[in-house]
C-alpha cells in the first residue's frame, strides 16, 4: 500500500517539477577576496521541495556561496533567481524577504535572551513588544507540534543544549516564514541521536514543501537525507548528482579531485606493555563543577585508545590533565612510574621529557603561535633540545630551519617553506606542522585531540596513516575526537565519555555508531 502511494507521490513531484521553476537558481556566481577566487562561475539549481546537499573540502567556497545567497557578501558577477524570479540580495533583510532562512554553523543567538525574544528579534510586529510576544508564543506552539520543534519559549538560550539552540535557529527562520532553509554544517555539534532528530525535522519540513540546502562534509549524512547533491572544489561547482545515483566514494573523489580511501587501512593492533594507567582521576573547575568524575583506564604500547563523546563531556579536560596543563586529583603511572598530576612536576616540559607528546585540540590557541614562522613553531616545546642549542647562550636557528624543512618534506606540508608564518598555511597543513613536531620526536605516548578538525579529506587520509604508523612503531596513542567515524576507524579500543564519566568500553571491531551514540547521549549500558 504505502509503496504504491509513495510511488504516486514521487511521480507527481516529478511531473510538477517540470513546470515549477527551481526554488533557487544561481547563474554564473563569482566572488574574489583579493587574489583568492572563492567562487568561480557557479551555477546551480535547487528544486522546490527537495533537500539539496552541498559538499566540499574546507575552503572549497561553500560558505562563501551561501553567504552571497544570504546577503552577507556581494557577488562580483552572477545572478540569483528565487522561484524563477531574478532577485537582488544586497543584505540579510532582502534574503529574509525572499523567503530564505539560514542556520549558521555558529549560532547567531543572544545567549541571555529567552527563546521567544530570539525568535521575534528583527521580526517584531510593532514598536511595542507585547503583541509580538503573544503572537510568537502561539506560532511556536504550532511549529512545535507540526515539526517536532519543541523548545520552552521562556527558557534562556544559555540554559539550552546545543541541539535545542539549533532548533531555535530553525524556529527563527520558520517564524519569518522562510520557504528555503540553508543549514551550514548542522550536525557538527550534535550527538548522533540529536542529528537523527534534526533529519526527521528536515524531512518533515520537506513534506510541507520547504526547500532545504544542507552544507556538510559528512558524506554519510548526504547519502541519508538528501535528494540531490552538488560537489564544490576550489571555488568551482564540479558536479551535481542525484543522491540515489552516487556513492560516498564517488563524492569523496569529486571533492578531492583524486581517489581517496575513506576507510583507514590498518592491521590488527599488537598491544604490548602497559604505558599509561590512570585511577580515580577527578577534576573540579574554578566554578566548582566536577568535570572529571573518578576516571580510570589503561593504555598499552602499540594501541590506539579512542575517547568518544559529544564535545564538552570532559574529554578536553582529560587531555589537558594528562598533558600537564591542568592539575587534578587522582593517580597515574607512566610505564609503572608515578606520573604527577599536580605540583611543580606537573607541566608540559616535564611531560615531554617523559616522552609524552601532545597534539592539542585547538591548534590555533594551543598548538601553534600563529604569527611565528613554521620553523619556530616546530621547535616550540623542544627548544631545549641540545641539537638546537650548541652552547648555553646560543640557539642554532639554521639547524632548526633545516630540521623543519626535512619534517615538512616528510609530512607533505604545502608549501614546504619553513620561513612562512604558521597563519599562512591552510588548516590541514597547520595540523601537519603540529603533528610533525610531536611525532618526529618518537614519543612513547601521544595524546591527540581532534586530529582532523577543520582539515581537508586529503589531509585527513594522510594524518590517519601517520597515526597508524606511529602505533605500529610501538607508541601508545590516546585519541580524543568528536567525530564518531574517526574514532571508529582509527581506534583499537574505545571509551565513551559522558558528563565527566566513562560510560563504557568497547572493542572497535565489536561495536558500531549506534551503540556508541546511545552511550554518548548518557544511556547506561544495557
Amino acid at each position, binding site marked *: 500500500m504505502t509503496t504504491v502511494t509513495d510511488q504516486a507521490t514521487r511521480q507527481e513531484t516529478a511531473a510538477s517539477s517540470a513546470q515549477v521553476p527551481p526554488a533557487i537558481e544561481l547563474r554564473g556566481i563569482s566572488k574574489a577576496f583579493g587574489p583568492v577566487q572563492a567562487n568561480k562561475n557557479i551555477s546551480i539549481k535547487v528544486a522546490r521541495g527537495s533537500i539539496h546537499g552541498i559538499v566540499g573540502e574546507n575552503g572549497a567556497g561553500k560558505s562563501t556561496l551561501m553567504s552571497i545567497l544570504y546577503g552577507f557578501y556581494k557577488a562580483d558577477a552572477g545572478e540569483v533567481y528565487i522561484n524563477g524570479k531574478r532577485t537582488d540580495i544586497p543584505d540579510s533583510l532582502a534574503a529574509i524577504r525572499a523567503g530564505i532562512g539560514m542556520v549558521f554553523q555558529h549560532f547567531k543567538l*543572544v545567549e541571555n535572551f529567552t527563546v521567544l525574544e530570539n525568535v521575534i*528579534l528583527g521580526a517584531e510586529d510593532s514598536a511595542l513588544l507585547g503583541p509580538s510576544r503573544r503572537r510568537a508564543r502561539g506560532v511556536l506552539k504550532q511549529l512545535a507540534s507540526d515539526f517536532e520543534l519543541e523548545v520552552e519559549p521562556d527558557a534562556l538560550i544559555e540554559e539550552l543544549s546545543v541541539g535545542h539552540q539549533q532548533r531555535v535557529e530553525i524556529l527563527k527562520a520558520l517564524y519569518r516564514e522562510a520557504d528555503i532553509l540553508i543549514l551550514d554544517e548542522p550536525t557538527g555539534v550534535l550527538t548522533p541521536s540529536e542529528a537523527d532528530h534534526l533529519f526527521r525535522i528536515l524531512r518533515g519540513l520537506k513534506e510541507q514543501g520547504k526547500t532545504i540546502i544542507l552544507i556538510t562534509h559528512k558524506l554519510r549524512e548526504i547519502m541519508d537525507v538528501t535528494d540531490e547533491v552538488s560537489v564544490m572544489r576550489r571555488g568551482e561547482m564540479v558536479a551535481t548528482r542525484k543522491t540515489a545515483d552516487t556513492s560516498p566514494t564517488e563524492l569523496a573523489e569529486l571533492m578531492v579531485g583524486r581517489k581517496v580511501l575513506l576507510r583507514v587501512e590498518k592491521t590488527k593492533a599488537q598491544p604490548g606493555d602497559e604505558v599509561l594507567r590512570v585511577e580515580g582521576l577527578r577534576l573540579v573547575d574554578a566554578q566548582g563543577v566536577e568535570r572529571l568524575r573518578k576516571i580510570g583506564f589503561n593504555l598499552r604500547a602499540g594501541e590506539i585508545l579512542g575517547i568518544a563523546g559529544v564535545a564538552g563531556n570532559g574529554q578536553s579536560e582529560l587531555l589537558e590533565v594528562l598533558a600537564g596543563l591542568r592539575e587534578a586529583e587522582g593517580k597515574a603511572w607512566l610505564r609503572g612510574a608515578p606520573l604527577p598530576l599536580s605540583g611543580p612536576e606537573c607541566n608540559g616540559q616535564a611531560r615531554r621529557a617523559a616522552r609524552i607528546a601532545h597534539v592539542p585540540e585547538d591548534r590555533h590557541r594551543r598548538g601553534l603561535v600563529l604569527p611565528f614562522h613554521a620553523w619556530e613553531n616546530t621547535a616550540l616545546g623542544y627548544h631545549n633540545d641540545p641539537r638546537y642549542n650548541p652552547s648555553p647562550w646560543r640557539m642554532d636557528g639554521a639547524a632548526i630551519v633545516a630540521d623543519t624543512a626535512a619534517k615538512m618534506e616528510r609530512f607533505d606540508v604545502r608549501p614546504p617553506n619553513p620561513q612562512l608564518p604558521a597563519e599562512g598555511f591552510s588548516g590541514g597543513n597547520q595540523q601537519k606542522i603540529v603533528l610533525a613536531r610531536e611525532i618526529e620526536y618518537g614519543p612513547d605516548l601521544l595524546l591527540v585531540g581532534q586530529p582532523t578538525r577543520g582539515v581537508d579529506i586529503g589531509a585527513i587520509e594522510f594524518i590517519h596513516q601517520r597515526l597508524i604508523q606511529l602505533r605500529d612503531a610501538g607508541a601508545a596513542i590516546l585519541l580524543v575526537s568528536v567525530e564518531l567515524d574517526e574514532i571508529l576507524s582509527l581506534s583499537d579500543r574505545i571509551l565513551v565519555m559522558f558528563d565527566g564519566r566513562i560510560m563504557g568500553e568497547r572493542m572497535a571491531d565489536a561495536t558500531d555508531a549506534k551503540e556508541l551514540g546511545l552511550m554518548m547521549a548518557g544511556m547506561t549500558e544495557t
Partner: protein
Amino acid sequence: MDLATLAQVLDSTLRLATPLLFACLAGLISERAGVFDIGLEGKILAAAFLAAAIAYVSGNVWLGVLAGIAVSVFMSLIHGVASITFRGNQLISGVAINFLAAGLTVVIAQNWFQQGGRTPSLTGDARMPTIDLPFAEALADVPVIGPIYGIFSGHAPLVYLAFLCVPATWFLLFRTRFGLRLRAVGENPAAVDTAGVSVIGLRFGAVAICGVLCGLAGAYLSTGLSAGFVKDMSAGRGYIALAAMIFAKWRPWHAMGAVLLFGLLEAVANRFQSIEVFGLALPVQVMQALPYILTVVILAGFVGRAIPPRAGGSPYVKEH
C-alpha cells in the same frame, strides 16, 4: 540630626543625584548597545559650558539647555564615527573626547567672557526655574508629611525629568522593539545583523540618546545646580556615573539607587563640614572624598561580579 537638617540633606541629595542619574542612564543605554563610553565626563563638561554660555548670552535657560544637548550629541556622534563606523578603540575615542572638552571649554570661555575660563554668573531667566509641587505650601506646616513632601517639591524641571527617565529607560529597554534590538546588539551583534537589522544604525541610535542625556546632565549642572560654568565643573561625575552603572549592573532602577547613594554622600559632605566619629573629627576633605572612594571600591569589584554586555567594547565586523 534633627528632622529639618535631614530633610535638607535629602533635598540636596535629589539635586546632586540628578546629573549623575542622567549620565548614568546615558552610559547604560550606550553600553547596553555595546559601545563603551568613557567620554560621559567630557560631554557633561561641554554641555555645561555651552548651556551656561548660551543661557547667559540669550537670557533664556531653555535655549541654553538645547545648546548643551546639541554639543553633547555632536560629541557623541564623533565617538560614534570613530568607534562604530571606523571601528576605532572605544576607550581611546572616549578619552580623546574628555581631553577635548576639558581644554576647549576653558579656552572658549576665556575667549568669549574674559573671566578666567568661566562664564558670568547666571541670574533671572538664564537660571533654571524651580517647580513647586501642588499643595506644597499648604502642607508645609503639617508635621512629618510637610517636610517629607517638601523634599520632593521645589526642584528644577530637569530633576523631575531625570527621575522620570528611569521608568522611561526601563520601558524602552525591556518593553519596546527598539530596546530588544538595542540589548541584542550589545550582546551579539551578529544575531541582529543576520536578522536583517542594521547594527550600525542601532548603535548610532544608542549613542545619540546617550548624547541627549549627557547634554541634560551638563545643562542642569551649570544652570540648575550652580549658576554658571567654572573650569572642570563636572568634577569626575562622568566617571562616578560609570561606577554607578556598573554597581547597578546595567539596570535602570538599580542605577537610580546607586546614584542616590552617591548623591547622598555628596550632600552629607556639603552639609557637614566635619563629622565626629567615635570622638575623632573627620576633616571635610575626607567627607568630600567619599563619593570617589566609593567609586574605587565599587570598581575594584567589591560589589560582586558585574557582567557587562558581552559585545561591549568591540566594533562589529561581519563574518560568517
